[in-house]
């Protein structure tokens, strides 16, 4: 089984640019989004989309569906922020309101505005996150983490996890297929038992894997360290670096201009 985002990260057109450069850029933009205001958010979203679709050559259709999924979720998270419930009739201008018993339920103009601002901020930070996810393969991210001095225990755990996440996804997919092929998944109790069996089988398989892996790695000279030599592209692209820096400076100016 494959995870779409992971697969794209290995085939995107910015793959051979130094992951450090891309990570720095992505995180920098993310921090900028959190500190800036709405007009800048819109510009960041558009600019990051250009990086992702234009430079990294992620198919537009895939990118749109990724953003769409997040958008739907965000839209669904907004009503609790917009809707106000009060015992008193609203003091501020409202878009509409109901009276239910002694309760007033209303949506205020201010609330909608706040939700809109939040939506744009989220979307633009998600586009920064997607830039990181779609252009930096996990292995290279791990190499960067090692280099900046993240404790070894964490990088080792991440290495083992990353390797076996896919093995287990495969296993769970196969077990699920087998359950379907044998007529499983009928009714709530049936589904519940099937899910329970899946988890149980996966658990025993995990323990088996642990035994196998200890032996397999011992045979390769494992003594507590999981050191490998990562081949990480180091080419820092001047062209992209220039655009990133100039763009960032323009954005800061823009933010200063509009944010006053």
């Amino acid at each position, binding site marked *: 089984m494959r*995870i779409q*985002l992971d697969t794209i990260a290995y085939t995107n057109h910015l793959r051979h640019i130094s992951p450090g450069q891309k990570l720095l850029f992505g995180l920098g933009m*993310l921090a900028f989004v*959190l*500190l800036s205001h709405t007009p800048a958010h819109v510009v960041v979203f558009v600019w990051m989309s250009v990086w992702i679709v234009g430079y990294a050559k992620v198919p537009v259709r895939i990118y749109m569906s*990724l953003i769409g999924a*997040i958008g*739907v*979720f965000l839209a*669904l998270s907004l*009503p*609790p*922020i917009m*809707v*106000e*419930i*009060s015992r008193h009739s609203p003091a501020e201008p409202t878009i509409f309101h*109901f*009276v*239910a018993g002694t309760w007033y*339920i209303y949506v205020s103009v*201010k609330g909608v505005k*706040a939700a809109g601002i*939040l939506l744009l*901020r*989220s979307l633009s*930070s*998600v586009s*920064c*996150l*997607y830039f*990181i*996810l779609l252009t930096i393969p*996990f292995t290279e*991210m791990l190499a960067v983490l090692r280099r900046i001095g993240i404790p070894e*225990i*964490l990088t*080792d*755990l*991440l290495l*083992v*996890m*990353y*390797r*076996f*996440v896919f093995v287990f996804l495969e296993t*769970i997919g196969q077990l699920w297929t087998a359950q379907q092929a044998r007529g499983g998944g009928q009714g*709530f109790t049936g*589904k*519940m038992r099937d*899910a*329970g069996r899946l*988890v*149980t089988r*996966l*658990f*025993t398989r*995990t323990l088996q894997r642990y035994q196998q892996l200890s032996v397999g790695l011992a045979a390769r000279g494992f003594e*507590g360290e*999981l050191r490998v030599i990562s081949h990480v592209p180091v080419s820092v692209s001047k062209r992209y670096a220039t655009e990133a820096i100039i763009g960032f400076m323009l954005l800061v100016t823009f933010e200063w201009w509009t944010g006053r």
Partner: protein
Amino acid sequence: MKKKRILSGIGVILLFALYFVWNEPQTAYAMHIMEGFLPVKWAVFWWIVFLPFFLLGLRSLTKLTKEKPETKLLLGLAGAFTFVLSALKIPSVTGSSSHPTGTGLGAVLFGPLVMTVLGTLVLLFQALLLAHGGLTTLGANAFSMAIVGPFVAYAVYRAIIPTGRQRLAIFMAAALADMATYIVTSLQLALAFPAASGGIAASFMKFAGIFAVTQVPLAISEGLLTVLVWNWLVAY
């Protein structure tokens, strides 16, 4: 006038019903606060609250793996296992599918401090491989899922186990860990977005009320599932 009020009441109910039907498939995200959703001061605040626990967990982990290097492999596999569980759809009491968190079972098996580190790494994977949650909101999400969840599960399990009712202990541990996670998430959102009238308390009621529709059945489902798994594991 009265008639109109009743009609509008029904309208509201219908609207909410529709909203929950829509919201249901999105429960995958519901326990996570999305990237960029929290204002910067709250994002930083939760990172600061989260870090001491994480570092404590890390310290106990380092000690553990120094003594027995193979533990590293076991924990890595356990992390992968938890991640895969969180990507698994389980049937929910309300009918459609939902996602288990696995923190309850993990805390009972490995202890809460270890689970804190593992849970955080699982959240990091969800952010990096699936774009669930985010990097700036990792502190807040890890606090609710990887710290509060496991500690509640562990405490509940320890509290009930002396009564000898193991299944109940497992069920409550898993279900209450889920509930605690969702309550903390609601609180985090309420703190960040206080209501115009009624402030934080009113806002908390709104978030908790809405999440309750999806998260309470899910917590019960996860509790049941964990008991089923536990039964099979104990039997063999």
